[in-house]
């Protein structure tokens, strides 16, 4: 009996200790992520600004936060704030681009990064591997603004290296910022260029966590390198692959604003291949004097679709392999 009580007490203590560990993070999440969620009501309102308001609670008069008074005083307009997303002449184009690039980036990111991680791991000289890894990770450090300067250095119509090279060779000069065709390639390359180092490092860290004796055992059993990768490495990377995949699926309706806005310099004539939901919202809202209700509506819609996609992806994963599911 005493032993059992002791165990319960120990368990209680353990739970308390673990709770104290999640406390700082939870507090942060609550303040910075959960409290602001009430602002979603904005998406359904014709948001107005009102004079400061006061409330009386138990005989004490308090000044109400301005933003909260605005929300309380604004009228509800149903789904009107969502209309601009679907009534735009380019609605189809921007949805196609957002989804298309995301699918492309997810697949390419997965294949290239896993391949690179495995390659780096197989290199005999660890110093060379480290050097490659260092160089490869470099673009990830740079913001898209900085990266857009790099792109400009190559593509600028009058001063860029590539147009100048074309001119010197007497070729027809491509006016890159006004020609759609090369942009799917440029954007994809930019994305691979910037993100590969990052995901390669995540996978590589996971690979180095694999017990080397497993490879040796496989090798002694006569497994070729290829078979080792297939039967030892990939299964170990599975959890990481699935987690990154599910997370990316959740952002399927979002796009990397910097990539699609800064890298093509927000240039107009190429928007049929560069416009995504985020760049559209940014450009369109300007005409309404910054209507935050519409921005909130767009964000909410993106979140909802991402949520649905994550749920679907997770359900499928759970069916196939329960341990790898996110929740």
């Amino acid at each position, binding site marked *: 009996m005493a032993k059992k009580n002791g165990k319960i007490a120990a368990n209680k203590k353990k*739970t308390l*200790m*673990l*709770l104290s*560990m*999640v406390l*700082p*993070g*939870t507090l*942060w*999440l609550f*303040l*910075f*992520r959960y409290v*602001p969620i*009430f*602002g*979603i009501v*904005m*998406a359904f309102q014709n948001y107005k600004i009102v004079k400061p308001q006061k409330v009386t609670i138990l005989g004490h008069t308090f000044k109400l936060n301005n933003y909260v008074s605005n929300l309380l005083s604004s009228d509800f307009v149903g789904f009107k704030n969502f209309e601009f997303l679907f009534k735009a002449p380019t609605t189809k184009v921007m949805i196609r681009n957002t989804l298309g690039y995301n699918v492309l980036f997810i697949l390419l990111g997965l294949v290239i990064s896993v391949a690179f991680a495995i*390659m780096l791991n197989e*290199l*005999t000289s*660890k110093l060379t591997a480290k050097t490659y890894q*260092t*160089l490869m990770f*470099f673009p990830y*450090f*740079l913001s898209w*603004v*900085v*990266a857009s300067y*790099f792109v400009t*250095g190559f593509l600028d119509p*009058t*001063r*860029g*290296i590539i*147009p*100048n090279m074309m001119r010197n060779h007497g070729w027809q000069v491509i006016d890159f910022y006004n020609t759609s065709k090369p942009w799917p390639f440029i954007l994809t390359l930019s994305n691979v*260029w910037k993100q*590969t*180092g990052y995901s390669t490092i995540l996978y590589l*860290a996971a690979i*180095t*966590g694999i017990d*080397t*004796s497993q*490879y040796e055992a496989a*090798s002694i059993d006569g497994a070729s390198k290829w078979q080792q990768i297939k039967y030892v490495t990939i299964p170990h990377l599975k*959890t990481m692959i699935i*987690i990154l995949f599910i*997370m990316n699926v959740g952002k399927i309706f979002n796009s990397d604003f910097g990539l699609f806005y800064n890298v093509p310099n927000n240039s107009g004539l190429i928007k049929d291949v560069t416009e995504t939901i985020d760049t559209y919202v940014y450009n369109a809202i300007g005409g309404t004097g910054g209507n935050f209700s519409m*921005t*909130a509506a767009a*964000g*909410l819609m993106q*979140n909802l679709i991402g*949520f649905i996609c994550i749920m679907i992806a997770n359900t499928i994963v759970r069916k196939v392999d329960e341990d790898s599911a996110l*929740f």
Partner: protein
Amino acid sequence: MAEIALNQKRRRINAVSIPAEVAINIVMILFCALCIVPFILVIIISFSAEDSIRAIGYSFLPQAWSVAAYEYAFKLGDALWRSYFNSFYITVLGTILSLIVYILYSYALSRKDFKYRNLFTFINFFVMLFGGGLVPTYCVTKQLLGLSDSYWAIIIPMLLNPFNVIVLRTFFQSSVPDELIEAASIDGSGEYNTLFKIVVPVAKPGIATIGLLTAIAYWNEWFIPKLYISASDKLHVPLQYLLMKMQADAEYIAKNSAAMGAEAGMAMMNLPTQSLRMVLVVLVVFPIACAYPFFQRYIISGLTIGSVKG
């Protein structure tokens, strides 16, 4: 000699074939070149004379060199160095604080015997899908918590990225065997003691990776400073934001020139030119380019220590 022999021995036991290794090297060299060549170009542009740029455009071999753009940039003087310092300070302090929060939260989530594991996993996961948006977040941060015009106003709003929690939790799960924790518990080690004395050393590669990613996030952040650091507060402006601001200024005036009328012309003339901004790009990137190999070494050493198994 011994080392070669060792290498040969290793190769014999379990290594890729030599042609495969050559192929891997070629692929890697090409990709790595792609990664750094643009930066080299920007460095060259920043040192190119304006006349050369006008005559032959951007080039790896300009007709004439010049440090004029740098001279102009250093005229920013104190503001520039102050921003440099700010970026470093925010990055170091922010990364340390973030890591503490990450390790604590992720470790608890990685414990299969944590009673509320699913609840707190969900609390963390949910915010990746739903957020309140810009205005309410701004309101809470600035008005409710009073964070503005201080280092905390940049560090605290960036303290946690739910995605990193999930990644680190996965690291803990896959690299720290349950038996290790159980053994420690049987030995009477307290939870915190187990975490910092036993688990953290084993999970170093994962922690170092997350630390690096967090440091980069702090270094590159410009949007949060833009929101919570007013332009007149010179004390806390980080470098990346300084650069962004210059770009934004130029685009703003170009966009509004028709409506601003005569104002635009005068305002335009006071703005830094493109070559100055190229200099700033170099100044933003240079410290990371220098510091990164050291980070990298730390990670690699972490990786080797971390591979203690079974």
